[in-house]
Structures are given as C-alpha cells and as structure tokens.
C-alpha cells in the first residue's frame, strides 16, 4: 500500500467514525509517523487527521496497514453527563469495534486517573483452543461521565 492509499484508507475510516457525510468536509490528513512500538511489538504508522472541527489519531500496522487503533482527540459532540454503568460501558465498547469470534471478555474496570477523572477500560483477550494468546488484546477506553469512547487498541495475532 503506497502513501496515497494509506491516506485514502484513513480518510474513509475517519469519515465513518466521525459520521462525516458531507463530501466537502473530507478529512484532512496531517502528520504521519512511523515508529517501532515496544508495547505492540510491531511497527506502527500513526496518522493524525482532522474533519471539520473534529480530529482523530489512527494507528495502522506498519506491515499490513490494518487499522489497529484510534483515539478521538477532539469531538464535536455537545458535552453531556450520563455517568455510564459498567454494563453500559461494555455495550458501548462492543458497538465501537467488531469483536473477533475467538475473543473473550477479560475485564471491565473503572480506572482511577487521579484528579480529575476516571476511565472505563473494557478488555478482551484472545483464546485459541482454550489457551490465551499472550500479548493479544482489544482495549476500549470510555469516559464514564460523558459516555464517549476515548480510544481503541487492537493487538491481535493470526494463530495457525
């Protein structure tokens, strides 16, 4: 996949995520950075993009160009207070990303982030033939107060 194809892929992804329907507001692709991620044990392409007054960071696998994570850095949604329960956080996380058939829920935690704020972390693990695939996970972070997804990270191996 060349640079232009990567840009188009990110544009399409962001339009979908940020629900940009007006073609005139097509996402602008910003800074692109390739770096080795010790956490994900792979090269990651990090792309910043903006659509209208919203922005995101999208992470792609450096080798396969598969989308492996995203973070909403600036959203145009009106601020609201919903105070999500754990169950609601789980449901929201499930609706944000397609969960693979061999994923098993690991935990739904309300993490203390100090002053101010807390974050829901919904995690799945990868189970193959009853065994956990080490290092594989899907994590969806949610703001419990506003009920917004903050970020998604997927580290999922193909097990043969």
């Amino acid at each position, binding site marked *: 996949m060349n640079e232009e194809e990567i840009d188009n892929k990110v544009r399409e992804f962001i339009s979908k995520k940020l629900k940009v329907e007006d073609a005139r507001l097509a996402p602008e692709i910003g800074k692109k950075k390739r770096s080795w*991620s*010790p*956490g*994900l044990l792979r090269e*990651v392409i990090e792309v910043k993009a903006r659509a209208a007054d919203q922005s995101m*960071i999208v*992470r792609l696998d450096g080798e396969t160009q598969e989308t492996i*994570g995203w*973070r909403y850095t600036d959203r145009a949604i009106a601020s609201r207070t919903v105070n999500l329960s754990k169950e609601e956080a789980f449901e929201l996380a499930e609706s944000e990303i397609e969960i693979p058939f061999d994923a098993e829920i690991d935990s739904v935690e309300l*993490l*203390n*982030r*100090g*002053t101010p704020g807390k974050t829901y*972390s919904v*995690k799945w693990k990868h189970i193959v033939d009853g065994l956990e695939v080490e290092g594989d*996970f899907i*994590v969806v*972070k949610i703001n419990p107060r506003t009920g917004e997804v*903050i*970020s998604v*990270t997927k580290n999922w191996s193909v097990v043969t």
Partner: protein
Amino acid sequence: MTEEKNEIKRLAKDIFEIKAKLVDYAKVLLSIEYYLESLSAKWANVFSIFVKGAFVCADPHALSNGHLPGAYDEGQQIEDVLERADYGVTLIRHPASKDDFLTNMSNKSIVHLAGHGSVSGDVYFLFDDGNIYPADIRAQSSVPSLLMYAGVCLGGANDTMANAFRDKGTKYYVGFTRTIPDWDAKYFDDLVYEKWLIEGKSLRTALDEADDIYPALDCWVLWED
C-alpha cells in the same frame, strides 16, 4: 512607489529593532536563570519553575538485593529524553541512598524515580539504606516544582505520597496503583516523556496515548491541579 519603499524600509528597521530587543530580553532571562541557580536552596525552589533541572534516580536496590535491569536502563533513557528537551540532568543509579535522593531532589523541576515502592498505610519508596515515607518528603525544604514521577510499584496505590509532594508545591505526581513489571515500565515511561516533552502534548494526554499502545501499564494515576 518611493513612499512604499520608504515604508518598507521603516518597517524593516522596526523589525530589526524589535529583534534586537528580544535578544536583550533573552539575555536578561538567561542572567536571571544563572542568578537563580546561585540563590539559596529555599529561594531557588520558589523560582525553580524557571530553572530546567531534572533528577533521575534509577535502580536503587533497596535493603535486599532488588536489582532491576529495566529500571537501570530506564535511567539512561529518561536522561536522554530530558536532555533533548534541554533539561540539565543529574542521574544516579545503584548505589542510591535515601540521602542521595532527598539531596538531589532539591531545586529540580522534574524528579524521576525508577525503582521499588510499596504501601503499608502510606506509600513509600525503597532505597539502599531504607525507605522514604511521605513524612520525609514533608520535612524537605525543596521538592520538584513540576513533576514527581514515581516509576515504582504501588507509588499511586493511594494519595499519601502524592499529597506529600503536592502539598509542598509539586504540580504533577504520577504513580501506579498496582505492581508494575520492570521492562514494561521502562518502555512505558520513556514513551510518556517522549510524548510530553518532545511532542509537546499535555502530561495527561501523553499518559493516555502511551497507555493506548502499552496497556500493560494502564494502572497509572496523575494527580494534578
């Protein structure tokens, strides 16, 4: 046309003068920085937000032989990032006593500890000759003005240590609510500093983004204003 040329000349002269003034201000700021460095510890701490000094303490072994190879490497790595961000860095690695830590912590903007920590009511840090408790921090005349990064197990298990630093004037305290693996901590901490000081993100965003790609350390807590 001649009038326009004169106007341009006049503007160029103004710009030149402004530039010269900015250089003069920069010199004054620099001399203030040198002056602050020569002040007494107490007063220097008051103004230490202007002095970019950092202290990195890596791999104190604690009373038992608790060598942490990841923390040892982390010391060098964090020093490199801080230096790239124009901090003057003091780095000490094993052996590191309580006194080494408390003395070097004085008059710094940033203090980074990569080592052992625990909790027994209060959070405490472990050094080669004993432990440092929140009461020891409260007894200091100078604490880091910007950040105390407790890259140790359980350094954020509760707010006792964070409050000790923050009550004395530290703006940010980062700790972890659980035990943290040595090598994971090294990679995570480095990523945080890189995003914060080099990429210019806020400390909270830097922690959030590091956590996105390094969820093994998702138990971080940031106390801030």
